[in-house]
C-alpha cells in the first residue's frame, strides 16, 4: 500500500508521520503515534470508544482515514490532560463512579468535552442524547450522566475558551453520524 506523509497537530504537538493511505486515524494514533488511550471497540463507528476531536469536533477515529488528518488539529484523551475542562470531566467521572471496566471511558470523556463545549449546561436528557453514540456495557450509563452533569457545575454559561470551543453554535447532540 502506498504511503503518504502528513503533518498535523496532535494534542498541541506538531507531528509528521508517513502512513499507508488506507490506514485509519485510530490505527495511526495507536500504532504510529503510540497513544493507546483511544480504544478500538468495533471499527465501524458504532461504539464510540475511539472518539477523538478533529479541529475540536468529536468523531469516531476508526471511520477517519489517517491521511485526512493532514493540516488538522487532533485531540485525544491524552491531550485532555492539559485542558481544564477535560480534567474537570475526568475528575467528575472518578468521583461519580462512572468508571467500571473503563474501556469506554476515554471515548466518553472526549465526547463529554465536546458536548459541554457546545452546551455548558445541558439537561440530563441532552446529556443522554449527547453520549448516545458511545456504548458502555458496565455502568448502565447512570453514573456517566451524573458525572457529566457534575462537571458542568461552576461552568460559565457561555462556551469555554479553548481549542475548538470558540464561536461554535450551541447544539445538543453530537457531530457523529
Amino acid at each position, binding site marked *: 500500500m502506498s504511503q503518504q506523509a502528513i503533518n498535523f497537530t496532535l494534542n498541541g504537538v506538531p507531528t509528521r508521520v508517513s502512513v499507508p493511505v488506507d490506514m485509519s486515524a485510530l490505527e495511526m494514533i495507536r500504532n504510529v503515534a503510540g*497513544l493507546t488511550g483511544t480504544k478500538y471497540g468495533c471499527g465501524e463507528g458504532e461504539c464510540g470508544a475511539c472518539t477523538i476531536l478533529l479541529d475540536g469536533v468529536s468523531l469516531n477515529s476508526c471511520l477517519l482515514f489517517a491521511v485526512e488528518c493532514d493540516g488538522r488539529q487532533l485531540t485525544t484523551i491524552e491531550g485532555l490532560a492539559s485542558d481544564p475542562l477535560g480534567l474537570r470531566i475526568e475528575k467528575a467521572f472518578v468521583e461519580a463512579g462512572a468508571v467500571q471496566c473503563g474501556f469506554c471511558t476515554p471515548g466518553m470523556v472526549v465526547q463529554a468535552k465536546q458536548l459541554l463545549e457546545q452546551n455548558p449546561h445541558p439537561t440530563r436528557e441532552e446529556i443522554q442524547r449527547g453520549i448516545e453514540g458511545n456504548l458502555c456495557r458496565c455502568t448502565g450509563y447512570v453514573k456517566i450522566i451524573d458525572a457529566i452533569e457534575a462537571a458542568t457545575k461552576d461552568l460559565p454559561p457561555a462556551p469555554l475558551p479553548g481549542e475548538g470551543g470558540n464561536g461554535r453554535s450551541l447544539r445538543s447532540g453530537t457531530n457523529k453520524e
Partner: protein
Amino acid sequence: MPETIQRDSLIGKRITKLDAPEKASGKTRYIQDLDVQGQLYGKILRSSRVHAKIKRIDTSKAKALPGVHAVITAADVPYQRPIGVAKDHFPLKTDRVRSTRDEIAAVAAESEAIAEAALKLIEVEYEDLPILADPYDSLKPGAPLIHPEPHGASAKHDHLKQAQGIAYLGKPDNVAMTFDYAQGDVAAGERESDVVFEDTFTLHYVTHCCMGVSGIIAEFDSSGNLLLYSNTQVPFLHKREFAEILSMDPARIRIIQPPIGGGFGSKLDIYPFEPICVYLAKATGRPVKLVFTREEEFLASPTRQPVILTLRSGCKKDGTLTFRTVNTLHDNGAYTSWGATTPFVMMQTISSLYRVPHCLYHTKAVYTNNPYAGSFRGYGNLQATFAVEQHMDMMAEAIGMDPLDFRMKNAQDPGEVTPQGMHFKSCGLKECLTTAAEMSGYREKFKINLANRDKPGHIKRGIGMASMLHVGGGAKIYPSDGCGTILKMDDFGSVTLITGASEIGQGSETVLAQLVCEELGLPLSAVRVVNNDTEITPWDVGVHASRTTFIAGNSAIGAAKKARSKILAAAATQAGLNADDLDLRGSHIVEAKSGTVVMSLSKLLRQLHFNDKAELVMTSFYYEPPSRHQDKHFKGDVSAAYAWATQVVEVEVDTDTGIVKMLKVTGAHDVGRVLNRLGIEGQIEGGIVMGQGYALTEELMVENGIVRNPGFRDYKLVTAPEIPEMDVRFIETMDGEGPQGAKGVGEAPAICIAAATANAIHNATGVRIMALPFTPEKVYRALHAAKKEAA
C-alpha cells in the same frame, strides 16, 4: 500529632475506585495496548462452512508470503489436547468443522496486515455435512452425529486416549450433558392442586459484548517457561488447565492479567484462540499477540445459554404452591462450555426461590452446529426466573390473589432449609418484596393499569414484579472456593494488599482495600493492591458467582486482623497499656475509649522494622465454613450466604407498533450490608440495563448455524437515552458470615428484569409473551394474535 481521634467508619460510604483516575485519563493499558518487544501478530482462519469434513488444507502460499513466520494447522501440533468443559474439541480442528467459528489454521506474522493477507492465501477444501440447527432435530433418531467416533485425531494419537475426552472417543448421540433433580412427589403435589399451568418459555442467544475485545500474548523464555498476558477471570484454574492442555508443568506457567475491558462471565473458560496463540509462540520462538476484531468477538466468544424451558406448576386456592416440574432443552452448540452447566443454578430457583414441596427437574444439553454458550452474569438464573416468575403471576391471577400477596405467602424466611438443602441463614426476600412494592406503588398501579387495559388509546401502561435468589457467599463448585491474601506493611504505615481476587471493573480491589483500612484505621491512600500475577498472588478460584466481596473480602479481613493484633500488642508493650484498650484510627494508635493518641503508626512500624524483626507480612486464606458440597443428586448447601432481590418494572406498550418502553425499574436488594455505596449502585444500575437489553433489544440472530448480526450495528445494545428511571433500595440483613455483614451482588440486578418486564407487558395488555426478546415485531404479532382470538 492530633490529641484525640474518634472512630470513623468507611463502611457504607461512597468510595471512588482506586483504578478510576488511570482509566478516566486513558492511561490504563489493556491487553490491546500492551506490546512485547519482538512480538509477532497472530490471526486465526475460521471455517467458512457450518458443518463439513476438512478434505484438504494447503498453507504453502501463505507460508511463502514475506513477513510470515509460521502457519499452523492441527497437523503441525500433534501434541494438542482437547479443551472445554467436556474436553470435546481441539483448538485447531482436525478432520471436521462443526460451526462457522471453528479454527482451521493460524498465522504468526510481522504485522496484523501481513497475518490477515496470509489467511486469505490458505486453501481449504470442504465436504459439507448436514446441518443441525435445531436441538429438537439433534435428538431425532438417526440424526447426524456432531461428535461421531472415532475422530481423525484419535486414530493418530492413540496414546492420548487416556484423556477420555469426547474429542478422542466421540459420542454415540448428540446429548452433551443431562441434569436430573427430584424432591418430594410431584404427582402427589399435582393431586393437591386447584390450579395447574404448563407452558413453554423460549430464551434466546445473547452475548457479553465486553467493550474490550478478547486478546492474549504468549511468550516462552529460554528455559521453556510460558508467560501469558491474559484477560482470564480465573487465573489459577487456567494455569492448571493450560498445563493440562499443553502437557506442561503448571509451575512453568505464569499468568499476568492486564486490566480487563469487561468480563461478565465470558472469561471463565479457555477458548481455542488462547492455546493457538501459545502454539504460534512455540512454533516461532517469538512472543505472539493475538487480539480479536469485533466481528470475531461476536462469532467466537461465548453466548448466554439459549434454553427451551417447559414449566408445569400448581397451587391451591389459598395460594400455597404445590409442585413444579421442569424440562429444559439447552442448545449446547457444537462444543461444551459452562453454558451447559447452568442447570446447577436454574434448579435452585425452581426449588428454592419460594417454598415448593415437590419438584422434578430435567435438562438435556444437546449438540447442534450453532455457537456454543458459556457462562454469563446470572448463570441460567435469568432463564429460570423468566419462567418461574411468569407462572407466579399467572397462578395468582387464576386464584384471584394479588401477585404480591401470593409471593409473600410462599416466600422464604431466614433460617429456612429448603428440600434441596439450601440453608438461608440471612434472607430478606419478604422485605425485598414489600419494599419494592411500596416504593413503586405496585398494588395501586397494577389495579389502575388493569382498569385501563380495555379503555381507548394505543399507549398502555404496565407494572410487573419478579424476585430472585442467587448465591451470595461463594459457590461450592470446585474442590476449593477459597481465596488467599498476603498483607505487607512497610515502615511508613502503608499497606500492600496482595490478593488472589481478580478485578474486572466491578470494583473488588477498592472494596478489599476498604475492608483492610477499616481494620487498620488507615486512609485508602495508604493501600496498594496487587492482584494480577499468578507468580505473586496467592491462590483464588476466580472472579465469578458474585463471590469476590464475600470470599476475598473475608480473606483480606483475616490478614488485616492479624496485622492489627500484632501492631496493637507491640504498641501496648511500648506504652505500658493493655492491647484490648487500644484501637487503630487515622494512622495512629489510640486509646479506644477516649480516642487519646498514644503514638503514630508509622513511628511504631519503623521501630518494629528496625529493632524487632517484626515480620510484618501477614497471610490468610479464607474458605467458607465447612459445609456439605451438593451430593450427586444436587442436594446440599452451595453457598455460605444467599442474595435476594425484588425488582418492579414499569413499561409503556404502544399497541399500534409493539414498541415497549421501559419507564422505571424499582429494586430492593438484600445485599447483607452495603460496603461501598458508589460501587454497589454502579453494579445494580449496570445490571438493570444489561437485563433491559436481554428483555427488549439484544439478540444474536443465528440462522442455520450462521450468525447474521456480528456487529453493534445490528446487535442492539441499550444506549444512554433508552435507560429507565431507577430507584434502588438496599435491604441490610447483616449476614453473620459476610465480611462486615455483606453478601455478593454482582449478578443479582440482571436476573429479574426480563421476567418482571413480561409481567408488566401482561399487566398493560393482557397478553403474555413467553419468548424473548420483546421486540416490537414480536409484541405486535402477539397483540394481534390475541385480538384475532378474541374476535
